[in-house]
């Protein structure tokens, strides 16, 4: 289907089902039950899942295929957000031109940054992109927000004010980002027994975009271009010796992933029309690296899983507090209960970053392939358990390769 082989089609269909059915899948518990705090099916969070999924897919096209580790991708996200908000301010609240512009601007910006940074590889490249991103952050935070030339509105963040021109805005249209009149915040709530499911217009726009860019990513992965990028990763020197100039390929990958980031930034602004400099800080770049690694570098589905995983647990862990813990460990004797709560306390609530850091280190150390590799290992282990003889036979045939 659509020029994909059977396996990829299945993957695409799985992703499509997951994203379209997310309001159901993420809300497995009735709204007023004690487990409702594990529900993640509200629009704001689902939008973040999908937007960061797009961001991570794009990052993976660069890092997963070429092995160039960029620490500056948040800059593109920020640039995308700023351009989208400028469209909102100057012309219209329609998200289509806004997102289109953010992709274009982020693309141009990444072209510039990639042109300079890709002259070096390895650590130099990481540090150059880091320097660029920090520079963009400083530019957005202070330099470009002086009274004479206020492009970013500094610390406050860029947002839409009542006296902005908004040339093509009319009174019939909602005063929020919309798609030809359909407000991004329009939500249809479906109550089924104890459950309630939210269907949000903004989320579904993001979901459709995610499916489109996921499809694009599959095509890139399977194309000769993707093959070339993988060759760059495995041995760039040899590529150069054969007389091939790899830079156009890496630059193209860099720009594509920059455009993905810009798209994510534009969508982020479309869901909530403001843009702040903190989106460009290098810790934000670090976050997308975490997502990609955690999910599985160089795999198609990995970054999406990683983004969902991190955003979900960020949300859940931050919500848990000591009272909740006491509820969980309530079955234990009192002293033991307090001890357990004391032990777990540093890792929850505000300590979420500690958990994330430890988790990330564990993944890098023991599971370089991320969640996807973990799943594969688990699958192989189960298969071996179930069909002992099959497994033996398989292992015996392996050396023949």
């Amino acid at each position: 289907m659509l020029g994909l082989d059977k396996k990829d089609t299945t993957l695409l269909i799985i992703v499509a089902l997951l994203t379209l059915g997310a309001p159901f899948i993420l809300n497995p518990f009735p709204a007023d039950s004690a487990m409702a705090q594990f529900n993640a099916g509200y629009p704001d969070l689902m939008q973040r899942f999908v937007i960061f999924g797009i961001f991570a897919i794009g990052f993976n096209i660069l890092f997963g295929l070429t092995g160039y580790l960029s620490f500056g991708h948040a800059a593109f996200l920020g640039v995308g957000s700023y351009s989208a908000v400028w469209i909102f301010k100057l012309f219209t609240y329609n998200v289509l031109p806004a997102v289109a512009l953010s992709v274009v601007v982020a693309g141009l910006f990444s072209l510039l940054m990639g042109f300079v940074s890709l002259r070096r590889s390895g650590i130099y490249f990481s540090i150059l992109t880091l320097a660029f991103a920090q520079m963009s952050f400083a530019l957005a935070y202070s330099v470009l927000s002086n009274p004479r030339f206020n492009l970013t509105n500094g610390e406050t963040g860029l947002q839409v004010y009542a006296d902005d021109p908004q040339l093509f805005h009319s009174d019939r249209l909602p005063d929020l980002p919309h798609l030809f009149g359909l407000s991004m915040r329009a939500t249809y709530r479906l109550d089924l027994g104890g459950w309630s499911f939210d269907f949000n217009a903004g989320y579904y726009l993001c979901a459709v975009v995610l499916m489109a860019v996921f499809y694009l990513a599959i095509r890139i992965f399977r194309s000769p271009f993707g093959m070339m990028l993988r060759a760059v990763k495995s041995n760039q020197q040899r590529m150069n010796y054969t007389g091939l100039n790899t830079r156009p390929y890496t630059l193209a990958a860099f720009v594509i992933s920059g455009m993905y980031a810009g798209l994510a930034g534009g969508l982020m602004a479309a869901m909530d029309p403001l843009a702040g400099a903190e989106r460009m800080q290098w810790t934000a770049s670090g976050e997308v690296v975490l997502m990609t690694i955690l999910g599985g570098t160089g795999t198609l589905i990995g970054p999406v899983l990683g983004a969902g995983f991190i955003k979900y647990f960020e949300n859940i862990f931050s919500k848990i507090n000591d009272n909740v813990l006491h509820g969980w460990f309530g079955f234990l004797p009192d002293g033991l209960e307090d001890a357990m709560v004391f032990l777990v306390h540093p890792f929850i609530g505000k300590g979420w970053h500690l958990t994330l850091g430890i988790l990330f280190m564990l993944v890098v150390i023991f599971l370089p392939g991320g969640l996807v590799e973990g799943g594969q290992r688990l699958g192989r282990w189960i298969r071996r358990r179930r069909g002992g003889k099959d497994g033996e036979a398989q292992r015996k045939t392996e050396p023949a390769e």
Partner: protein
Amino acid sequence: MDAFLLQILNGLDKGSAYALIALGLTLIFGTLGVVNFAHGALFMIGAFCAVTLQRLFTLSFETIDPTRTDFLGNPMKVKTPYIESWFGPDIGAAIIDWSVPLAVLFSIPIMLGIGYAMERGLIKHFYKRPHADQILVTFGLAIVLQEVVKYFFGANPIQTPAPAALRGSVDLGQMIGFQANAIIYPIWRLVYFFFAAGVIAAVFAFLQFTTFGMVVRAGMADRETVGLLGINIDRRFTIMFGIAAAVAGLAGVMYGPLNPPNYHMGMDFLVLSFVVVVVGGMGSLPGAVLAGFLLGVLESFASTTWATTTIPGINQIIIYLVAIIILLTRPRGLMGRKGVMED
């Protein structure tokens, strides 16, 4: 002329911190070939060594002083630090006052230990893995260290004052023949600069004039051959990692009075220190020191009113701009050698 000199001086303290951190980074990179993203966290831990020592010194017990009353008329509780009760009030107060310089001694064994444990426990397993993995695992470690410190010390900056004797300013200009009040400079910044210069000199002397240093330099040049000569180079490199951690820690200890330590100060310095290392030339120790001071001074010149009115915010981006320009014109950095990290 005096204004010019003042800007140079102003850049020296930040430059010293950059130089010290960059020196440590380069030591680790030059010996073990590892890019240590947790180095900023080591700087931060150093600063919190000073905080810890200060807290230890001011640990106190309460006594009720019947001669005085508080505002409610009850006998007042007076807190006396243990130190004061052990050594007498005068010496005790002096020890508390000098807690930051004393923390230098306190932090060295701690930082050496942390560095040693880090290398043996974690970094060792990453020599054979790609650079990206090293960056990632040390990045994760930096997050963890940062969060642990935040858990124990909170998110707010903690004041670590310099000793009272070194707190004021000194009229440097008058000392060297300018008119009075032209160049007034805080004493602690001078102290920091000379301290940093001392540490840098000590590291270079250690590498240059001791047998241990000679072996390490040989190992940096050709690890394999040194290993074949029957020298356990890994062990020495581990110790160098400890020393690099100690250098970063010392930079942090003494930086407290200039800028109250908070848990993310390391990350702020880390990015700049990487830029410093790249500008100086990866793997070149003199380059790291030179670039550290150079960029510190440059930053101070860019923060003058003249510069910031001409180009607003130039002080925020000057370092990155210079780094980008240098990498494009001299890809190996100011003093980078051929063959180091060429791929």
